[in-house]
């Protein structure tokens, strides 16, 4: 399979994630879209690491492991923040949670 196919698929998945962040106002769904974007980046990492061949082709996969660890930490913190915001405000609509707006 040519490398471009995987990169185009990765770009499309990333774009869907971006559109989701722009369109949806539910904080949890915005989080899911961020996960989608991280996954698209992972796909590009693995595809490019494969195209670089045997000699130095594993570094991309190691990076994917790191990205997954960071994503797991981010989800844990983010969902804890969402839960505590919901306890205070009774909503997770990001348009109504705007106290930090300048």
């Amino acid at each position: 399979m040519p490398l471009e196919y995987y990169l185009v698929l990765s770009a499309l998945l990333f774009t869907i994630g971006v559109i989701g962040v722009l369109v949806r106002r539910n904080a949890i769904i915005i989080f899911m879209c961020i996960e989608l974007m991280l996954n698209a980046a992972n796909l590009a990492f693995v595809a490019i690491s494969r195209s670089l061949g045997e000699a130095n082709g594993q570094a991309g996969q190691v990076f994917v492991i790191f990205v997954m660890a960071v994503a797991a930490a981010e989800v844990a913190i983010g969902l804890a923040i969402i839960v505590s915001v919901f306890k205070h405000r009774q909503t997770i609509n990001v348009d109504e949670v705007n106290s930090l707006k300048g």
Partner: protein
Amino acid sequence: MNAEQILFILFGAVSLIGAVSVISFRHPIYSALSLVVTFFAQAGLFILLGAHFVAAVQVIVYAGAIMVLFLFVIMLLNLGTLSAKGAIGPKLKGFAVILGILLAIEGIYIAVNSANDTAVAAAETATGTTTTYQIGELLFSKYLLPFEVTSLILLAALIGVIVLVKRESQEEN
């Protein structure tokens, strides 16, 4: 058309359909389940790319642990009733979709052009698979420092979550 191409189209289509479902379902539970479908399809793509260990980690960490967290929080907050007004107006939505299409065109342009790049000149992907042994060897030799820093990140996340939740329970008392 060989088996790899058929599987790529299958997994790619499933992951794209799942991703579109994530942003189009009203109810967050359906979005979360669509996201699981996308993650599984991407694990299939990783296997096609010969990255078996990454595919296994994708299924275990993403489709397992992270999605359980999402579903747990959605059910804990009982969000189904709240999400009815969870979208923006059609005008802004159209604007967002136009921006997204522009971004997609840029991404596709970069992806197609990258074939001309000398660094990725061997665009036809190789056939070998990466074993867990090779990844582990890299992880514990060349990338040992990032690996240790990752453990610090996880520790910071753990402490952060405990602090966030603990302050809540003290305020309630």
